[in-house]
């Protein structure tokens, strides 16, 4: 019998066995799974370009080769042009994360509040700052340890197996196979599904893959736009006002990446720029107006993102309630620290899409 439980079980062994092994030996398999996820994201980004070139060349293999060559050339160009600056800024920022910098920040904050507030309010603020000094320094210590941890561990996380070069090769190989045979893998999986659920599975897989692709592409495009516009905005502000905001590239990266977290993300980027401005050596005296200007730059960045970039992104947002975002970010943070906080919302958004599509499928195909 083709649809007997035994037959269905045997037909599905090809994915159930690897999945069981992956979960059972999680400790050893997660780096490979992580590389697979990176390759999958790569496929989502590159697939439209490969399809476009394939429509001209009519050869999938050649199209994949041409796109990957272009990616490698751009990657080499970026490594040569931006990486040295970024690396230097990362090392500088690591050495800057000390308690002296914290004292400097408190002094600057006092200066600004003295400028801004009437005397009696300033004295109150100063008293509050002094009374909360221990608390603030604890927070600072936690943040700096986390940031240093991220900088030193990001490499380990991305390239958990062996060296950077070896892992890049693995990701590249997975990417090539996914670009060449992604559709075939999907068909093999669908083939194992019982007839009863066949159409529903095809529809759900299509919808999930469309939604996830649109979401990931949208988020990456928004992150890139926020990152680049932040860097440009900060450069323009420095040029006009003469203030010094170092580590512009790092701030751009932080603003872009933290943009993955709705509501909270844009504030993180802005605060990073403000703190960096306050703790750096300035020729022009520190004034509140410059802090407001930096905030204004990030407001403009968000405005550009929301008015110009986002309308071009289909399904860029998956509509998660702000309260749920905060819960998810906290859970992500509890599981794997700041990086968990960063990726918690995208993971939750993808899970939400999967659950919604499954519910839609079961309801419309009358299984619910």
């Amino acid at each position: 019998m083709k649809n007997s439980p035994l037959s269905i079980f045997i037909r599905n062994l090809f994915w159930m066995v690897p999945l069981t092994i992956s979960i059972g030996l999680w400790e050893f398999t997660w780096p490979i799974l992580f590389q697979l996820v990176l390759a999958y994201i790569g496929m989502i980004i590159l697939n439209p370009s490969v399809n476009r070139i394939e429509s001209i060349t009519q050869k999938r293999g050649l199209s994949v080769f041409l796109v990957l060559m272009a990616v490698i050339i751009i990657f080499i160009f970026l490594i040569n042009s931006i990486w040295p600056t970024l690396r230097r800024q990362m090392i500088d920022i690591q050495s800057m994360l000390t308690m002296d910098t914290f004292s400097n920040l408190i002094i600057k904050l006092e200066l600004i509040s003295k400028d801004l507030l009437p005397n009696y309010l300033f004295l109150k603020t100063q008293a509050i700052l002094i009374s909360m000094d221990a608390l603030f320094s604890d927070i600072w210590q936690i943040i700096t340890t986390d940031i240093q941890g991220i900088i030193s561990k990001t490499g380990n996380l991305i390239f958990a197996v062996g060296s950077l070069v070896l892992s890049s090769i693995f990701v590249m190989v997975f990417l090539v196979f996914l670009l060449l045979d992604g559709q075939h893998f999907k068909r093999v999986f669908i083939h194992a599904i019982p007839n009863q659920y066949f159409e529903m599975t095809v529809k759900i897989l299509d919808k999930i893959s469309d939604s996830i692709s649109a979401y990931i592409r949208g988020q990456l495009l928004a992150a890139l736009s926020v990152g680049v516009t932040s860097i440009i905005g900060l450069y323009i502000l420095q040029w006009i006002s003469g203030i010094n905001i170092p580590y512009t590239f790092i701030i751009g990266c932080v603003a872009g990446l933290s943009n993955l977290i709705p509501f909270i993300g844009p504030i993180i980027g802005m605060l990073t720029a403000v703190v960096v401005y306050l703790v750096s050596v300035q020729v022009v005296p520190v004034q509140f107006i410059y802090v407001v200007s930096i905030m204004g730059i990030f407001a403009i960045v968000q405005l550009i993102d929301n008015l110009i970039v986002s309308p071009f992104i289909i399904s860029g947002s998956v509509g998660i309630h702000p309260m749920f975002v905060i819960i998810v970010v906290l859970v992500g943070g509890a599981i794997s620290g700041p990086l968990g906080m960063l990726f918690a919302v995208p993971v939750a958004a993808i899970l939400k899409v999967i659950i919604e599509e499954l519910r839609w499928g079961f309801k419309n195909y009358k299984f619910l």
Partner: protein
Amino acid sequence: MIIKNALWSNIFKTDSNESSQTILALKQVPIFNGLSERDFNTVLKIVHNREYELDEFIFQSGTPGLGMYIIIEGDVVIKGMNSEGKNIEFARLSSGEFFGEISLIGEDDRSTNAMALSPCKLGAFFRSDLLDIITRSPKLGNKILLNLAIVLGNRLTKTNELLIHGEMGK
């Protein structure tokens, strides 16, 4: 000299007999008229091969329509409700014939049930597959779309004729 390893060649071989059977069935479908051998191989890679048992539903009315089925082997019956609410048989189809092609264009729910009248092999060609072909191979996509338009146009003409001759009410 190439020495073939029987075990591995059996594990990794594609069922060429099944493929040629599917291509033969595809060649009888007007939607694939005028396609080259290479085009047929492209379509073959996309079509889902399914096997159904006697009396098994292929699709049911009211479910979202995904695309068409091509009968490679066996018989299929298309049933549905008429205007009086009676369950009637619309058509009996056999190998080389196809059904569900309207779903290649619209996203409407299925209006009929399709059921296997005998154990049968079907090839499923869905809207998402057609869109994929249009993106990756516009020339082939256009050929299929034009054929699909001709098939649907012919059906419309026949329906008009039936309406004019009052056959619909009988």
